C-alpha cells in the first residue's frame, strides 16, 4: 500500500493569497483530493489544490523547505 505525498494549497476567500497549508499521504490524485478536503477542514476554503510533492520544482536552489526535502529524496 504505497502512498504518495501531496502538498496542499488553499485560498481562504476570493482575492486572498494561495498558501501552502499542509500535506497528505494518498494512493492517487482522487484520494488525495478527498483526504485534503477532509483533513484541512478548519476553514471554509474558497479554493484548494493538491500537487504531488515530486512535481514541485524548487526555483531557488537554496535553503528553502522544498529544496531541502527534494535533495533529501534525490539522495
Amino acid at each position, binding site marked *: *500500500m504505497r502512498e504518495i*505525498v501531496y502538498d496542499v494549497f488553499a485560498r481562504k476567500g476570493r482575492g486572498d493569497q494561495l498558501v*501552502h*497549508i*499542509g*500535506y*497528505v*499521504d494518498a494512493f492517487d490524485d482522487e484520494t488525495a483530493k478527498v483526504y485534503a478536503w*477532509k*483533513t*484541512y477542514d*478548519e476553514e471554509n476554503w474558497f479554493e484548494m489544490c493538491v500537487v504531488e510533492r515530486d512535481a514541485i520544482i524548487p526555483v531557488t536552489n537554496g*535553503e*528553502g*523547505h522544498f*529544496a*531541502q*526535502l527534494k*535533495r*533529501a529524496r534525490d539522495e
Partner: protein
Amino acid sequence: MSPFTDDELKQKVQDGYMVEGPEDMTEGYRKALVVQLTVQADTELMSAPSYWMAARYAPSTNTQVSAHAIIQDELAHANIAYRLLEDIGESKEHLVYGRQPHEFKHPYGFDQPLDNWAELVVATGFFDRAGITLLTDVHENTSYAPLKRALVKIGMEETFHLRHGEVWMRRLSKAGGEAKEMVQRAVDWMFPMTIEWFGLPDDMKRHSGQLDYRLKGLTNDQLRQVWMSATVPLCEQLGLHVPAHWDAEREAYVLDYPFPCQYDAVDKHWAFDEGEISWDAVFERWKGRGPMNEIYVESVQRSRLDVARWLDGKAAA
C-alpha cells in the same frame, strides 16, 4: 547535515534562527525533534481510539457527530505529525504499523478506558487542555518552522475540542444530582492523571535539549501551572472539587495531595493515603502501560496487513 556545530545551532536558534529542513539540523537537533514529534504524533493517534470507543456513550445523534468530528481531527493531527517525521527521515509505516503497543510514546492517560459520557467530556476538557497547553508553547517557541506552520490548524481544532468538553462539563455539573456526581468521579481520576502527564518536576528534570534547541519554551512545572490556571478556576466555578488550590503567598497553584502517587487503574483510584512515591515507580507504571494500551493500538493496526495482502493478491493476478 547542518553547516553548524551543535553549539552554533543552539546559539542560532536562541537568536531566532528558524530551521526549515533536514540540512539545517545537527544530529542532536534531529534526534530531539524526533522524540518530541513522536510523542506528539502518538498522543494524537491514541486519543482517537480512546475517544472513539467512548463516543458510543453520546446521548444524541448531534453529540455523536461532534464526538466523531473530534476523533476525525485527532487522526488528521496524527497524520500531520507522522508526515513531519517522514520529512526528517523516519518511517510512518514503521511508527504506526511496525511497533508493539508498549513502544508507543503517548501519555499513560490514553491507556485508560473512558467508560461513560461524563468521562469523555472531562477527557476533552482536561486532556485536550493539556494538549493545547503543550502545543501552544511549541507553536510560540519552536525553532522548527514546518511544525510551527502545522500547529496553526491543530491549535484551532484543539480549541474546539476543549470548548466541547467544557460546555458539557458545565451542562452536567449545573444539572446537579447524578450528572454532577459522574463528572466529579471523572475529575477525581483525571485531574491527577493530567498533572502527572506534564512529567518530572523541574528540579529533577534530566537535561533533554528541547529547551536548548528551542523546541519548546516552558518547563514542565511552568506548563503544569498554565494548565492548572485554566482548569482549577473552571472546576471551582462549576462546584467541582479538585485537589489543588491557588496559594497567594507562593503565587502559584499548589497540589493538595502527595505528588507523585500510585494509581490503581482497575478501580480508577489514586492512592493519596499511601503517600508520595518515587518517579522511578511512576516510570515503571507508565512502562507497564495501562489497561487499554493493547486494545487501542490493535484497533489502529488491525486491518493493515489483511488489506495489503488483498491488494497485493489483486495486483499479482
